[in-house]
């Protein structure tokens, strides 16, 4: 009898763990949604801020987030996928390649603020791109490069050897095999990785603090060398700078909600694609 009591107690504790976890995370989402929804309106989404950030919308920050994310993906996607293709398809399985793989894995765990330092030293200062969309995009691009490489590698490795051999045996060259068989088969996996990266880039703040973001700018960005307002940094700035904390907090709730919807939607999309892919492989 005692044995079962311990079991019941143990199971109760585990049940509480998941309940507490979901409660905490649910609370965050609840507050952001309820309070954010109050300020979100069409003018909040499509207008520029007014009166020192206490009124108006956050359109420039939404646009800035879009530009930075787009720039980072344009930079990191070809580079990362090409790197993964080289590692999986062309390079011999040597010691050097293993070292490269390990360093890519490790770089995926480097704190994002460290990438910010790199971007500052290299893009802002050394290449003299200044605090700009370009510097920020490149920094964010490098930040997600390891995850794009590992996701692509995983997807490429999952392509069975047998169908590569079939393609080669029909007289296809290795490039034709990669282009027509390997990449199309690996595409859903690569896409999942890329979409997850988009979610991550859109929410990153630390790496763009000193490479791209500015608290307040009157004009919309005109070139890749412009500074930009960005949603996550805008939240930070609203909470730590300025003179009307109450009004600014309300706006910050709105920004947080937009960011949350964006990121959760994107990662839900990626997870749905992955789930489908899994069931396809098991079928």
């Amino acid at each position, binding site marked *: 009898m005692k044995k079962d009591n311990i079991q019941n107690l143990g199971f109760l504790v585990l049940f509480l763990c998941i309940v*507490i976890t979901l409660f905490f995370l649910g609370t965050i989402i609840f507050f952001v949604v309820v309070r954010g929804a109050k300020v979100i309106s069409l003018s909040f989404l499509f207008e520029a801020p007014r009166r020192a950030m206490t009124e108006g919308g956050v359109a420039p920050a939404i646009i800035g987030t879009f530009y930075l994310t787009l720039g980072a993906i344009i930079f990191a996607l070809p580079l990362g996928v090409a790197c993964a293709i080289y590692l999986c398809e*062309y390079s011999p399985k040597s010691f050097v390649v293993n070292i490269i793989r390990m360093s890519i*894995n490790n770089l995926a765990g480097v704190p994002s603020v460290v990438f910010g330092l790199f971007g500052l030293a290299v893009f802002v200062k050394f290449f003299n791109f200044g605090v700009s969309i370009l510097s920020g995009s490149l920094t964010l691009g490098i930040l997600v490069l390891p995850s794009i490489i590992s996701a692509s590698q995983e997807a490429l490795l999952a392509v069975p050897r047998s169908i590569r051999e079939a393609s080669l045996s029909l007289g296809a060259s290795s490039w034709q095999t990669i282009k027509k068989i390997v990449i199309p088969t690996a595409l859903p996996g690569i896409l999942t990785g890329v979409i997850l990266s988009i979610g991550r880039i859109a929410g990153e703040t630390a790496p763009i603090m*000193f490479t791209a973001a500015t608290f307040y700018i009157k004009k919309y960005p005109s070139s890749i060398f412009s500074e930009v307002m960005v949603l996550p940094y805008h939240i930070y700035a609203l909470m730590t700078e300025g003179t009307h904390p109450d009004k600014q907090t309300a706006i910050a709730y709105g920004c947080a909600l937009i960011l949350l919807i964006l990121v959760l939607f994107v990662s839900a999309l990626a997870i749905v694609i992955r789930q489908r892919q899994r069931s396809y492989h098991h079928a």
Partner: protein
Amino acid sequence: MRIKETIYKWIFTIFAFASLLFLVGIVVVLFKEGLPIFKHVKLVAFLFGKSWYPTYEPAEYGILPLIMGSVWVTVGAVLVSVPLGVGSALYLDELASYKQKAILKPIIEILASIPSIVFGFFGMVIVAPLIQRIFKLPVGLCALTASIILGVMAIPTICSLAEDALSYVPRSFREASFALGANRWQTLTKVVVPAAGSGVSTSIILGVSRIVGETMTVLMVSGGAAMIPVSFFQPVRPMTATIAAEMGEAAMGSAHYHALFAIGLILFLVTLVFNIIAELISRRFRIKLGLNR
């Protein structure tokens, strides 16, 4: 035809080495920009100096308060996230019905992507005032608040990775235990958890690594005082927050600038060690369970 093949191969080689160049570049830049601080201050004095006054005259660059800030916040966050994360993973793996798991696992994975700035913001507007009221503190922004927020933030990561590890334990292990008359709890604690142990520890280490490197949350809720904390109710200034808060003001090439890069270098090395340990353990885990990948 052959020429085309060779060209493609070269294009990929160049791309691959370009990405490597960037990644290696990070290490090079951190060393190049970080090491010059040791012209101003000795390594021991830098690591163990008790005062961080980078803008005073004369400036002092002792990062012990920052290190201790990171340590306190990390320990606090681990106390929150590990029990809840692993406990939730055990629930998902062992108790949840197939349907529950099919819903909860993706939800937890999706929650793992909530940006840290949202956590920081929530900590600032909701949790900090609450902590201030409950414990009657002068300010709510302190190590405790940072620990709670960071801990909650790391739960989805730890839970999701730990659940993966648990799900790799072959069903035959469980069946063998049931066949010997063990109940589910005994099977869980004596067979499943030990078998998945190294996989679960990998998830914990990766979670801790994420906590150590987290910036925006601690920048917003830890209070920002660069002193060695003696209790969880004091404000602290972890290393990441220091870099984020001060880099904007540090003049390029100044001692302060180099000091911040040196802190970045230390952060880099610490997370590198965590990741290498995690990789080694998970490799052993895969061998132990006969998973070849």
